């Protein structure tokens, strides 16, 4: 055990530590007692600050840690599981892939542009810290409603939020606009393609938008770097941006609910500099090539504090640093401020003693600051000096392993919605199903997201085989035959109705999206967005979600290699839906066999691959229908439960897709999700000038809405040349998957018949014009075409 030096000086500005001060630091009286016990004395103010950030929910995972242990994290491909800056899997040919998803929810509400921008910056640093060059990003975004819907009051009642008024809608527009420009500005400048992702709207996110960024990079298997300090006497080097007062207590802020006046916390949000990050990327990768770097970690949440004690703890060594050596942007900064600053674009690295100059030369070339600020010690203690005087002396493990762990109380909970279809809802009477399909296609969650994704550079690096709008992103790996698939999914509404089942669906859908390209899903990362964990029902939902994720990841062979937990997503006591967001990575061995999402030409056969073992009963379908987009958007209702999910069948479906893909028998494959089969079929036609003529069958007592718009999981719409259909049926049968013929691709017209009655019929162009540009119409933004003056040739 470590002995403590009696020479610890109180920070000059230290006031006596009062109960108020402890509370302001987000620490409970018990936690403070524990600090005193660990140190064997009262902490200095700097030490109090350090404990407060490291023991915050954001850094310590104190509420979630006991549950996260239940997630599967191993497979033969996993090189690095949770606990590092990013997870890493082996992808063959001597290459590995580093990837992770992270949230920046709280900052994005306070300052949407910078909050989202620095979210992208943070996740990119996590990737290149591992030695990997980022090659793709995606985002999962959630906002409040951006348009009035049929029955706002009833929807409002469901989530506890009031009716959606114009002011709230405007606020949501501006959040969306700010977040999207922030993501665009950072990623575009940095030069990493954004392959899309998902954007969803639900009233519960109005006060707590979710901004989850998913990044992926590649690194040679034998050139991976870890965030581990080693070698007593080795120099500790600070590189990148200078330290300012921005972001102090960002991690603590992210560990609280929003109250009245939380906007005043805006100074806690950092400001991003993507240009500096680009230089940092190139400089770090080049410095790593010198062989002089022992370990490296980015300064993200809790900045210098976190990187110092975590690198020490992982390496079983101590680190001593001097504040006077830290490059500072402002004058008169105290040790407290320097240690807690969350200024962006900074890295801490440990180099081999005597080889510092090799590292400095690289950073100098890229015009970046690099200074030795300390050294590695043998005793496992983090020491901070200011003008030579000790201002903090804390055993690393006190900040990491010994951080509080809570088994928060849990209380089973059920959404306050009818379990069955309410009597006043009637299906099967209305005959305007074509109109309903158009409304659904134009609805916020289903409509075209081009206004968002065209603001992102999706093609830089010239690897993008499938970008925004496809089921999954697909990037080739130059110099190999392979490509990597990635998708991100989550369904908060389903998790609200059934947290465990909803969470399994998130994994299944993300993996299914990857599988649609022909790639084999191999690993996952998760971002767990929840309300206040001190509420027993929130903690229960969290625990249920972990069980759902664990079951699905286990069954689908996609272990979780890391991720992020974002709690306290509450404003004025109102929480968000439990929203686990899952990113899945897949490998496509032969990139030239990639399957397209859209119908390719007229005269192809359309089939449905389905994992559903048997037709569900009419009652079961009705109960599940309450969780659909149709129920939400057209009926303004929410009831029942998410669709059932057979994970073993789902896994078989993915294997079947992989085999069909590698046999090159498919012309297209598209996942059937929001809006059900009718929406999936229509989406396959958009942008192709190909239509579809489809004949469906409804069981006894099953309304056409259930057939068209029901959201049964485990279904993929495929098309093929007619002479391939027998082979496809055979392969599907071998995997225990049904391949049901639906119809044919035809010129321009979209027709669906149920039991020989035509229920939907419209030209594809009409459906497409409902779907395309709908988001722009809701946001009231002029299209760029309309802004372009016809005559600008005036001098």
């Amino acid at each position, binding site marked *: 055990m470590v002995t403590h030096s009696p020479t610890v000086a109180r920070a000059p500005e230290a006031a006596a530590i009062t109960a108020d001060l402890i509370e302001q630091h987000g620490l409970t009286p018990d936690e403070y007692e524990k600090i005193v016990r660990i140190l064997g004395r009262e902490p200095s103010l700097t030490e109090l600050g350090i404990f407060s950030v490291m023991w915050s929910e954001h850094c310590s995972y104190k509420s979630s840690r006991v549950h996260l242990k239940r997630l599967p994290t191993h497979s033969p491909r996993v090189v690095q599981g949770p606990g590092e800056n990013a997870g890493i899997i082996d992808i063959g040919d001597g290459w590995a892939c580093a990837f992770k998803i992270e949230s920046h929810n709280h900052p994005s509400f306070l300052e949407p542009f910078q909050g989202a921008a620095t979210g992208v910056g943070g996740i990119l640093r996590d990737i290149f810290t591992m030695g990997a060059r980022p090659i793709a990003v995606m985002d999962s975004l959630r906002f409040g409603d951006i348009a009035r819907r049929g029955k706002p009051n009833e929807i409002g009642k469901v989530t506890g939020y009031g009716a959606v008024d114009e002011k709230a809608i405007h606020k949501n527009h501006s959040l969306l606009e700010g977040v999207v*420009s922030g993501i*665009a*500005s950072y990623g*575009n*400048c*940095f*030069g990493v393609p954004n392959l899309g992702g998902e954007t969803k709207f639900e009233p519960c996110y109005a006060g707590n938008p979710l901004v989850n960024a998913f990044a992926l990079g590649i690194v040679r298997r034998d050139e991976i770097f870890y965030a581990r300090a080693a070698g007593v006497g080795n120099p500790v080097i600070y590189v990148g941006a200078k330290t300012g007062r921005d972001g102090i207590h960002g991690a603590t802020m992210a560990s609280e609910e929003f109250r009245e006046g939380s906007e005043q916390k805006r100074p806690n949000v950092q400001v991003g*500099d*993507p*240009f*500096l990050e*680009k*230089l940092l990327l190139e400089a770090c990768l080049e410095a790593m090539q010198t062989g002089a770097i022992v370990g490296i970690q980015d300064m993200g949440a809790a900045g210098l504090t976190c990187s110092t004690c975590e690198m020490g703890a992982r390496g079983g060594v101590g680190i001593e640093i001097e504040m006077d050596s830290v490059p500072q942007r402002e004058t008169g900064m105290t040790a407290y401020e320097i240690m807690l600053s969350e200024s962006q674009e900074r890295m801490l690295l440990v180099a081999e003693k005597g080889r510092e100059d090799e590292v400095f030369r690289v950073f100098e070339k*890229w*015009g970046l600051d690099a200074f030795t600020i300390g050294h590695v010690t043998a005793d496992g203690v983090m020491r901070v000096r200011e003008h030579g005087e000790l201002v903090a002396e804390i055993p690393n493990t006190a900040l990491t392993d010994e951080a509080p762990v809570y088994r928060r109380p849990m209380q089973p909970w059920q959404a306050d919605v009818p379990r069955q279809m309410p009597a006043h809802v009637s299906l099967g009477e209305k005959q305007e199903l074509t109109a309903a399909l158009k409304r659904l296609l134009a609805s916020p969650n289903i409509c075209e997201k081009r206004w968002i994704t*065209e*603001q*992102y*550079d*999706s*093609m*830089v*690096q*010239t690897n*993008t*085989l499938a970008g925004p709008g496809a089921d999954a992103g697909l990037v*080739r790996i*130059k110099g190999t035959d392979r490509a990597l698939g990635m998708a991100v999914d989550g369904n908060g509404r389903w998790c609200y109705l059934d947290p465990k089942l909803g969470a399994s669906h998130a994994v299944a859908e993300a993996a299914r999206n990857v599988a649609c390209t022909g790639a084999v899903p191999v690993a996952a990362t998760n971002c767990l967005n929840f309300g206040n964990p001190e509420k027993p029902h929130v903690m229960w939902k969290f625990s249920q979600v972990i069980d759902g994720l664990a079951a699905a990841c286990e069954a689908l062979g996609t272990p979780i290699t890391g991720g992020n937990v974002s709690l306290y997503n509450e404003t004025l006591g109102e929480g968000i839906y439990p929203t686990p967001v899952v990113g899945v990575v897949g490998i496509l061995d032969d*990139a*030239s066999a*990639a399957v397209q999402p859209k119908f390719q030409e007229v005269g192809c056969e359309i089939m449905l691959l389905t994992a559903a073992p048997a037709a569900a009963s009419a009652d079961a379908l009705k109960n599940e229908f309450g969780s659909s987009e149709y129920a939400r958007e057209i009926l303004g209702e929410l009831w029942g439960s998410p669709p059932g999910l057979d994970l073993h069948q789902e896994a078989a479906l993915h294997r079947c897709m992989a085999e069909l893909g590698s046999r090159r028998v498919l012309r297209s494959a598209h996942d059937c999700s929001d809006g059900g089969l009718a929406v999936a079929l229509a989406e396959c036609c958009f942008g192709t000038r190909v239509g579809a003529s489809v004949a469906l069958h409804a069981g006894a007592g099953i309304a056409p809405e259930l057939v068209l718009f029901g959201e049964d999981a485990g279904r993929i719409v495929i098309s093929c040349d007619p002479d391939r259909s027998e082979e496809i049926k055979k392969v599907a049968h071998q995997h225990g998957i049904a391949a049901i013929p639906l119809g044919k691709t035809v010129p321009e017209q979209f027709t669906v018949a149920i039991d020989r009655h035509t229920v939907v019929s419209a030209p594809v162009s009409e459906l497409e014009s409902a779907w395309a540009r709908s988001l722009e119409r809701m946001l009231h933004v*002029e*299209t*760029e*075409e309309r*802004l*372009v*003056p*016809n005559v*600008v*040739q*005036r*001098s």
Partner: protein
Amino acid sequence: MKFGVVVFPGSNCDHDAYHVLGTVARQPVTFLWHESHDLQNCDAIIIPGGFAFGDYLRTGAIARFSPVMQAVSKFARSGGLVLGICNGFQVLCEAGLLPGALMRNAGLKFICKFVHVRVESTDTPYTQACARGEVLRVPIAHMEGNYFCDEPMHARLQREERIIFRYCDAEGRATAEGNPNGALDNIAGICNEGRNVLGLMPHPERASEAELGSMDGFRVFESLVGAMARQ
């Protein structure tokens, strides 16, 4: 025959240009660091896309002062081949090697998408293998691509057939709908008086392999390699 790809801090399409020249066109290619005056005996210089020096000031406004640009200017003025793509076009305008300026897109947003451009003149080393009026499907990705010059210059560009690419629709009509960013007279690319310096906003290097969705951009590199071989 050797190509040089200039690297400024913040260039991010430098590797893409290098890839298309080295791997797709199979030509010798090297990177040229911004702090060097030495063009390493390259026969053609590419100023790639990206955000040189962050573009926090006017795009290209800082890059033009870098040592490599002094060498590039000298090279260009003595007839050397210089191709500026996207940010590279902006840098060439700032450096005075091409006339006019690239303003913020009319829609005020960054736009990344495939567009169509029409080849207006085949009398350049960059388009000599194309047909006049040929429509190329190539992507754009920029915030400042809204080309502008004053009317006398515009008249001169037209008279001297120095407008090399115009935005158009799929059928090759240079309409307002086909103009993504508000550029004057649908201008997507121009050349200098000597026709050896070309700047264009679209990214031909992103449309040079079938798996990336279009091979049309390769027409530019094909032309260039062909022209150099004949020299």
